[in-house]
């Protein structure tokens, strides 16, 4: 019985220490005004894929935030789910862009990771969202009146 109890205690201890570092965050975009693509492809107003040569990068979309959770990442404390719609809708028109392509999401460690000993404690991760803001070359180079008429 003693051996079983020791084994159980050891198992619980290992379980408690496992997966104790980091956080978890879901990135959503529920109210976008502009198309966003994880690949280099994006559809034009007619629904057809635009050739890469038809678009030009006009800027970089960037968003950095910190996500915090506790109890083995079960309980969200900060930015458990992050809607990036407002950031996209604000940054794209500031560059005269029409869409975002090559959207990427990366997470990395924070100083919290060093301080968290077991999963029950709060822990945080940095999340970095990047993308290329693009516009059609034809729109960028069009005369002002023609460009304004383009939907």
């Amino acid at each position, binding site marked *: 019985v003693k051996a079983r109890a020791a084994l159980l205690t050891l198992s619980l201890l290992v379980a408690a220490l496992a997966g104790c570092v980091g956080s978890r965050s879901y990135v959503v975009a529920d109210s976008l005004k502009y198309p966003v693509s994880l690949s280099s492809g994006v559809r034009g107003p007619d629904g057809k894929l635009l050739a890469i040569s038809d678009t*030009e990068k006009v*800027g970089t979309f960037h968003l950095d935030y910190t996500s915090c959770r506790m109890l083995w990442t079960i309980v969200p404390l900060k930015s458990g789910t992050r809607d990036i719609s407002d950031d996209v809708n604000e940054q794209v028109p500031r560059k005269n862009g029409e869409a975002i392509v090559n959207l990427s999401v990366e997470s990395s460690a924070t100083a919290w990771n060093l301080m968290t000993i077991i999963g029950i404690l709060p822990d945080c991760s940095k999340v970095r969202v990047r993308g290329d803001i693009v516009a059609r070359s034809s729109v960028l180079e069009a005369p002002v009146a023609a460009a304004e008429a383009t939907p």
Partner: protein
Amino acid sequence: MKRSISRLTLLLVALSVSGCAAMLNGTEQDVTVHGYPNRTRLKMTDSGGAVVYDGPSPGQVKLRRKETYKLTVSRPGFSPETVTVASSTNWVWLIPAFTITGPFEIISFANGSVKEFDENGIEVTIFGEGRRPAGAVVFEP
């Protein structure tokens, strides 16, 4: 033997008075400069007017950390933009100032080693003539 010890001592003294940031960071930084959209031309000058880079985008430049630069981005049919590019202090380099080498860190502050340009590079967007949108952001330092 005595000469070797003297040289080693001199080297250690020189290193200790150089300042931590000066030793590890250096006084110059490699920076990538992007002009958007495609086919833009970049011209970068230092505060004395000397041309640091004049060519197509993107450009790779070696900038002095304590220097301020002017960057002009242009393309036919687009309104050219000139922005001021400056480094900012990385406060991590303040930590050594509170160690035993603290007094010597003044050298790091004097030669600009504690400063850094944006590690993601410098990015400037220009707009077609008459096409600059409201709230446009050309450059985010």
